[in-house]
């Protein structure tokens, strides 16, 4: 089970790394559209890795109940993968409809 612990730790910390990257990216990128890149998508991979780690850790003491809980955790990932690109697209579309011009190289950051 020690190998299992190592796998869970690696998955969890790489997930946290991507989630941190997403948060830092929102602060550092110059405008509305480019901020959505880290906000909408680094989160997707980050939560995939973190949720997989939770599901594996939950199977430590194997039982039917633990298996069902792990399946539910994986369902969260499925819904995030469906909802995240849709929400990102909706936000970008709202920006375009409101007439916000994208930041281009050389401008000041907004």
């Amino acid at each position, binding site marked *: 089970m020690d190998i299992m612990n190592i796998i869970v730790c690696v998955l969890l910390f790489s997930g946290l790394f991507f989630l941190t*990257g997403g948060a830092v990216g929102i602060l550092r990128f110059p405008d509305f559209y*480019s901020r959505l890149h880290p906000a909408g*998508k*680094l989160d997707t991979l980050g939560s995939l890795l973190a949720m997989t780690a939770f599901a594996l850790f939950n199977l430590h003491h194997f039982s039917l109940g633990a298996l069902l809980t792990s399946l539910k955790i994986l369902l969260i990932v*499925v819904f995030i993968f469906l909802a995240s*690109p*849709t929400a990102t*697209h909706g936000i970008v579309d709202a920006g375009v409809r409101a007439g916000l011009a994208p930041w281009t190289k050389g401008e000041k950051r907004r």
Partner: protein
Amino acid sequence: MDKQEEEGLGRKHNTSKREISDQGPGRRKNFGPYVVTFFILFGVWVVLSGKFDPFHLSLGVISCAIVAYLSADLLRPSMRGLLILLVRWVPYLLWLMKEIFKANLHVTYLVFHPRMMDLIDPKIVKFRSKLEGDLALVTFANSITLTPGTITVNVSPDGDFKVHAIDKASGEPLPGEMEARIAKIFGESDG
């Protein structure tokens, strides 16, 4: 993701079959979609409820049967649709995961780079896709959005894409390999 796609595939397959059978005389009712919908719903019910006593299972059977009766016309899955899903979608999803991972690393590199403002060069990329089916276009648009560095801004029904790319390296590969793979899934590879 899997569920929506399989429903879409099932519908595509079934409508073409129905068009054929509509022409023949005496079209008989097909119970396949009801059965498949019921078992998909019941699987989700068992996972979410986690109780195996007769009371909860019979509640599940009743409500799944009602929902399957109401919505099988809407979803129209079929056994062949599920097989197509396995054969064609699973390799594509694995490939997409690999692309997502590579592109995520790239965006993370940009985020933590000290001179990030010099590296990024946001641009709206416009191109025309060869894909024709609605479902193929939606799949393509969502795949573009899922791959970091690119967000689909707008798609017209004719296949005109507007994509916001964070830098040159992210925008250049479009439409490229992803479009070819989606065309293969939907059997549009020849045009």
